[in-house]
């Protein structure tokens, strides 16, 4: 199971947790597993066509999956995914 770091705005959708575990061999599979476990996250992460919303950045460990293979990027058991939407508070 990979670890997912959940940003503040998504925490209410995962029962207030900062980190959750989800399984899958790719970034897409892990995020879909998250969405199955916590359906409220589905709409926040994915658009109607199933692709990742453009305003959601996802990092595999410290690297943006956009510069890897996107949702097809392979994920290992000890990897961490960071979900990161922009914040504008000042």
């Amino acid at each position, binding site marked *: 199971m990979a670890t997912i*770091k959940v*940003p*503040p*705005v998504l925490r209410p959708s995962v029962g207030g947790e*900062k980190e959750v575990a989800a399984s899958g061999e790719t970034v897409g599979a892990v995020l879909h597993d998250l969405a199955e476990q916590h359906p409220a996250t589905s709409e*926040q992460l994915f658009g109607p066509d199933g692709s990742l919303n*453009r*305003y*959601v*950045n996802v*990092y595999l460990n*410290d*690297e*943006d999956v*956009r*510069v890897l293979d996107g949702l097809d990027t392979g994920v290992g058991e000890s990897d961490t995914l*960071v979900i*990161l*939407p*922009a*914040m*504008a*508070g*000042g």
Partner: protein
Amino acid sequence: MSPSGAEVIRQIKSQVEEIDPAQVSEHLGNGIVLIDVRDSTEWDAGHIPGAKHVPRGYLESRIEGAAGADRGQEIVIYCASGQRSALAAHTLKDLLGYANVKSMTGGITLWKDRGYKVDVPKTLTAEQRERYSRHLLIPEIGLEGQAKLLESKVLLLGAGGLGSPTALYLAAAGVGTLGVVDDDEVDLSNLQRQVIHTTDRIGVAKVDSAEQSITAINPDVNVVKYKTRLDASNIMEIIEGYDVIVDGVDNFPTRYLLNDATVRLGIPVVSASILGFDGQLSVFKPHDGPCYRCLYPVPPPAEMAPSCGANGVLGVLPGTMGLLQATEVVKLVTGAGEPLVGRLLLYEALGATFTELKVRRDPECPICSKDPSEIADEEMGVFPDYEAFCAAAG
């Protein structure tokens, strides 16, 4: 009868090899070590670029530090007119064994008469030396770094949560000009975190309140106040001429607008944002690293981007993030260290964790992949669904 001083100097000059300023100018940077043997006040009034300062009184004890121990090293010595440098060259050759030493004919006086460049180092007043003494002691800052800070112009967007600590510490650090943009007045609910303001200034314009605090800490700082909201009509006029911009604004449209304008003008932005117990920080240095749009191509919808006003923020969090911003500003101005370019730092206060993520330049970025002169006014601050976003955000 003993010879007169003038005769001794004449004799020594006749034994020392001299070099014309034209040749020194031509060979500077080609491995020659250029030594200025005048006293400190003369050095401070101006010296030849690249020269090292070894006052004649310290010649024997400090020359190896300046020129190295290799007795074959080519050394050129100068003073004001060529006399002290001849005596110093004689000492180096006869007493210390440096074989390749020359004295520059006519000293810096002739050098200047010929129109060659002179560096005049920034000097500090006695009060400034005392005020900034702890900076002067750090090699990474020192006199040169402090002089850069005193000459720098930094613009703070917002005198709120992030802008308050940043302004206070940049003022204390001796940033020469601090611009402050804010159209708001001090409110009681601000005082839990906006530490530049005080209870007796509730209702006062934030730019005026910020100015009072800044000036109280450091009267050296020139405060430029902009009691306005940054928008497309005024942004270019306000930000032009600043060396660094500190972004602590509380909304996405202004963050995108600021990004586009700063990429166009080539001004680095130290950007932070906060919410609840979480903070984000990065430095967007146009064309050296990614821009804000490379990181966030589009803003999240309003329901995924709550404001501090709506969701709250830990009072000390903007202190933490604002001071990280201030640190990055000092680094950018002085050139010390590795600025947070191409990296995003996340701070989560409840768990006391820092996470660093890589931020890459997007080769398809609609703004920073272009030549800055091709960024049109009507493109700035625009993103897909901009109107819908702004309508939803109210």
